[in-house]
């Protein structure tokens, strides 16, 4: 795994003289985002209107929230395919709770509790029972969708307390609240990944799980933790999504899975584990949202969006594969 040693100076303790590859990859992505935005605003003047840019940022922040925890999972060398379905279930049950109690606090607590519980169950199956993560989370994807469908009984729930809606559609100092939440999550997750032992350990696990285990990394506990964090982020995303659209339906989270994984990969995380940053995922989410937004502005039918997302996902993987080959 020389590739990882090269790309992660923190593991070797050697400070490279040149810029770290992670910084380079982040800057490259930032430049791509800027060039893309510039190009689109030249083609279509509606793009750089304030309302459209705010819209793009809000949409990207929601996508990022879904993808943020899953970034940690991928860095740790596993995958979480249940994020979309987890958003759905957390949002639906939270909506039900708010509908019957009228309490925003209870709604928030419910969404976070369900998201975390689902993450813990996934994590326990992967960490302790050693089942492959893609299978476990693929199975739980369908279990969660089924539960959400059944809970809702085919009727959407609408209308939530004002304080709750604030989290999805409000402004603080002129900045949309979801974007502030996004900054908060970026801060906490970056701190966890880059400045704590836990963070160093998940990079090591992703690079080579056996080696990490042999050098004393508590692999099982950390796996449980990253899945739990992914669940927390799904719960958080559910809150923001609910507050934004003011309505819950059993199909609301499904469309997030593909773009979220795409955002993570576009952001520079590798599916082979051991590389990736949360800031990269922010840029990935932004890039994907800009592409989809541009398609909208160019009046391309929204039916093409899943196709475009799938294509971006595959393109990101191809790029990642090419990079890996070059590094070897």
């Amino acid at each position, binding site marked *: 795994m020389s590739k990882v040693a090269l790309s992660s100076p923190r593991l070797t303790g050697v400070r490279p003289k040149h810029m770290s590859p992670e910084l380079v990859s982040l800057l490259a992505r930032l430049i791509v985002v800027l060039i893309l935005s510039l190009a689109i605003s030249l083609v279509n003047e509606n793009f750089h209107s304030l309302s459209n840019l705010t819209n793009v940022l809000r949409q990207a922040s929601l996508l990022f929230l879904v993808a943020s925890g899953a970034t940690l999972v991928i860095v740790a060398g596993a995958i979480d*395919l249940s994020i979309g379905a987890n958003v759905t279930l957390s949002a639906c049950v939270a909506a039900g709770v708010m509908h019957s109690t009228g309490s925003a606090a209870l709604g928030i607590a419910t969404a976070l509790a369900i998201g975390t519980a689902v993450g813990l169950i996934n994590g326990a*199956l992967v960490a302790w029972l050693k089942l492959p993560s893609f299978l476990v989370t693929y199975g739980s994807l369908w279990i969660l969708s*089924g539960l959400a469908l059944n809970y809702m009984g085919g009727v959407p729930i609408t209308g939530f307390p004002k304080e709750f809606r604030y989290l999805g559609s409000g402004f603080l100092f002129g900045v949309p609240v979801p974007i502030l939440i996004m900054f908060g999550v970026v801060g906490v997750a970056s701190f966890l990944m880059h400045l704590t032992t836990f963070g160093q350990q998940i990079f090591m696990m992703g690079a080579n799980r056996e080696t990490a285990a042999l050098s004393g990394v508590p692999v099982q506990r950390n796996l449980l933790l990253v899945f739990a964090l992914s669940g927390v982020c799904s719960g958080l995303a559910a809150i923001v999504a609910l507050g934004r659209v003011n309505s819950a339906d059993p199909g609301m989270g499904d469309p997030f899975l593909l773009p979220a994984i795409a955002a993570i990969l576009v952001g520079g995380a590798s*599916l082979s584990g051991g590389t990736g940053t949360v800031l990269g995922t922010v840029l990935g989410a932004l890039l994907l949202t800009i592409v989809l937004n541009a398609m909208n502005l160019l009046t391309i*039918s929204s039916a093409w969006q899943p*196709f475009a997302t*799938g294509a971006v996902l*595959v393109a990101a993987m191809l790029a990642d594969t090419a990079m890996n080959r070059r590094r070897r």
Partner: protein
Amino acid sequence: MKINLKLSGGASPALFSGLPHKALGAIAVLFVLMPLFGVFADRFFTAGNFLNIALQSSILLLIALPMTFVILTEGLDLSPGALLSLCGVVLALCLVGGVALPLATLVAMFVGLAFGVFNGVCVAALGMPPFVVTLGALGMAQGLALAITDGNAVSGLGPEVEALNNAQILGLPLLIVIAIAAYGIFHWLLYHTTFGRYVIAVGGNADALRLSGVRVRLVHGAVYAISGLTAGFASLSMIARTNAGHPTIALGMEFDAIAAVVLGGTSFERGNGWLFGTVLGVIAIGILRNGLNLLGVDTSLQLVCIGILVLAVLLIERFVSEGRG
């Protein structure tokens, strides 16, 4: 890691010489649930209902057979459900446009094959993880199906398609005959050809295979190509049954297929599998869905049941394999 080549003994038919105890999930569902459904759902034990189950299962089997190959190579294909929908829509659009049925079927199979080859190249030649590659393919196929139809069903396919649904050979509905024939072909491929032996070995020990000069990547990629091609072909059965092309009709069918393969005793590790177990698994899923339907259990809870069943089987497998050493 031992290569499990004993399944591929040329002389033995391997139909029942596999490992029946591995298909415990399917057998349990068949023998425990069938009497229960019989007692609690009046219409369960009727000829008409069984015919219905068989017809439903005939399409699922077409997806589950290549899925068994994919899982034998320690991979996964999430795209067949979306592909089946896309190919069905393509087939329907061709028919509406006046293309003859055989040619239209070929076009649909070509679309399926194109996606399959794409998956195969990404997984086998480029070494990308199959679940994400095929997730991308799922998105693209689903998007294409929605985009070319604007989300609407394509109907008015003409009498030929309806005739296909009602056709019988020796008293058996054509769709069931097609499924049986498909099983025959896949059985032959897996147990009586060199290709099949390699498929089993790719999951068992790809390195040993490569060292002995086998073009592992070609075999590995071909498995995904076959999966796409079969999905394209299965769209014919699908169209015959529904008499329309619907862009989202088969979404999620890959989950039933994966569940059937797992229940049928094919493991995600070491290329351990039993093709006839997949048939049992498909029938088990068909009966489970049908019985729960008759009992008035909502589709949503059926999903939950199947999901939990799959996780339970995986867990049992894990404990059994750990117990063995």
